């Protein structure tokens, strides 16, 4: 700018004085996500040698579908974690959205909606996602506006929403019915060019999230909130709005995945996705999201969710008792953060 006259002395744009870390020690290559991705590839190679069934198309499709549900919600929860929050209510939200979608579809079949193509399905999808939206708004309002702790708020919501799922259905599973039901199964459980649609949804959503996080002002504010919330507020960022938005997006991702699961299962049981919140948070953390906020992204969410599913699948193929899977996932969570910790220690020392 012109108001600064360049004072006498050397121009300081050669940076001879300031060192720069090598390219492989910064950015994506130095992130936990990259390490876990490398580990994932190694595990998959080992597994393909150990079990001929691992790379069969049937098994791969199964793995892909299973991890997509968790992966989609992990995307949403990763957003919350990046702001420094946590969302424990996603498992319950998956169930209530799924149940609402199925019940609304049942209720609309046989009414005037049958006459309009796809109307019944669109309204029931809207109802399912609408419930998720309300849950997200409630979480966001209580956390951002009222100032309650994210852990306690979403823990309460976990219980409230799960209870509602049981109360509404009286414990009975709800199957989608009506004239659009074939279409419903196509868009939730179908295949596109041989790939399960759930995988395609996951990858598209991950790509969108990547662009939003790194190339829009909203994404930048999400990171700023996790890095230094006070600073974000001082610069005039609408902290409350951003916070409410991430809880809403998290709940919507859960609602969407819940509805996809109805298509997969053919029914929405009240205990759908019970305990998934922990798998989802584990996937986010394994993928490199930092629970202190400020770090995380869609690649990590996808890789973390895939790693958990590949290990589960591998243990099944190897004929190992399924309970060991739970032990192993716990071990991997700790190992992933431990490796990251050792790496940062080495870099700072």
């Amino acid at each position, binding site marked *: 700018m012109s108001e600064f006259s360049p004072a006498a002395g050397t121009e*300081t744009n050669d*940076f001879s004085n300031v060192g720069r870390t090598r390219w492989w020690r910064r950015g994506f290559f130095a992130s936990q996500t990259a390490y876990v991705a490398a580990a994932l590839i190694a595990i998959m190679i080992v597994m393909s040698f150990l079990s001929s069934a691992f790379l069969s198309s049937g098994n791969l499709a199964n793995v892909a579908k299973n991890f997509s549900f968790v992966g989609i919600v992990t995307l949403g929860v990763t957003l919350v974690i990046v702001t420094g929050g946590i969302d424990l209510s996603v498992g319950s939200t998956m169930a209530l959205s799924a149940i609402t979608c199925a019940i609304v579809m049942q209720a609309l079949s046989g009414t005037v909606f049958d006459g309009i193509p796809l109307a019944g399905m669109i309204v029931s999808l809207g109802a399912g996602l609408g419930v998720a939206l309300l849950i997200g708004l409630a979480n966001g309002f209580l956390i951002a506006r009222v100032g309650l702790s994210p852990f306690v708020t979403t823990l309460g919501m976990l219980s409230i929403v799960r209870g509602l799922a049981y109360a509404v259905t009286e414990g009975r599973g709800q199957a989608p019915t009506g004239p659009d039901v074939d279409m419903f199964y196509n868009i939730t459980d179908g295949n596109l060019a041989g790939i399960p649609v759930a995988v395609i949804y996951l990858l598209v959503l991950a790509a969108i999230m990547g662009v939003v996080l790194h190339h829009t002002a909203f994404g930048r504010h999400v990171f700023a909130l996790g890095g*230094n919330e006070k600073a974000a507020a001082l610069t005039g960022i609408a902290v409350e709005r951003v916070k409410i938005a991430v809880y809403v997006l998290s709940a919507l991702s859960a609602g969407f995945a819940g509805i996809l699961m109805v298509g997969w299962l053919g029914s929405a049981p009240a205990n759908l996705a019970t305990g998934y919140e922990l798998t989802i948070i584990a996937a986010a953390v394994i993928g490199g999201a930092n629970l202190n906020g400020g770090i995380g992204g869609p690649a990590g969410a996808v890789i973390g969710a895939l790693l958990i599913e590949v290990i589960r699948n591998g243990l099944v193929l190897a004929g190992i008792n399924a309970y060991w899977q739970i032990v192993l996932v716990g071990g991997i969570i700790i190992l992933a953060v431990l490796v990251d910790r050792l790496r940062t220690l080495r870099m700072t020392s």
Partner: protein
Amino acid sequence: MSLLVLQDVGKEFGAIRALSHVNLTIKPGEVVGLMGDNGAGKSTLVKIIAGNFPPSHGRILFEDREVHFTKPVDARSVGIEVVYQDLALADNLTAAANVFLGREMRRKVGPFSFLDHAAMNRRTAELFRELKSETRPDDVVRAMSGGQRQAVAIARTRLAKAKLILMDEPTAAISVRQVAEVLDLIRRLKDAGIAVILISHRMPDVFAVCERVIVMRRGTKVADKPIDQSSPEEVTALITGAKEAA
């Protein structure tokens, strides 16, 4: 013309009188040291100027117009910026991201608007060059030295075309070389015609860069004189109360 004038400004918090009858004038491009012990009313004064809360009584004039600030954004909109002691930076973001935080440059692509990374990096590099700081726009703040962090925080205020910058203890807890860097930054701001109020406990810093020193004690202004007519000994005496007023 005066940049900032406070007339008979006071502030009470319930029964506690934090500030009483403060008059002061800041001219454009002036570097003024604001000194005083803890609880002397420095931060109350700074918070009133920065718009954190309004004074209980008295008037504030900025560029000869009366202003009423109720929140920091009000003060910022007329050209008053604050560099906070903890710098208010997001460690996980790059220098450029911090400089432009909350006022990102965007590019419209159809109905969407995306961050213009190249333009923000370019502008940030310009600001660092002006400040003669060896800081890269795309480096992450976490890995930066104290002096570089100061440069980022000051570059923020330059971006906003500030006319008055309040700096709260910018040299506390940084190394000797970094203190020199920060004092250089303050001189650069003065060269550019920006007024600076330097809140500091460090006598050498104030005497190195300020033209005038204001001393607060127990909520009142006890001294306001050109730096070359005072001495560190006198200022110390004023701060502690060994000398009543000057």
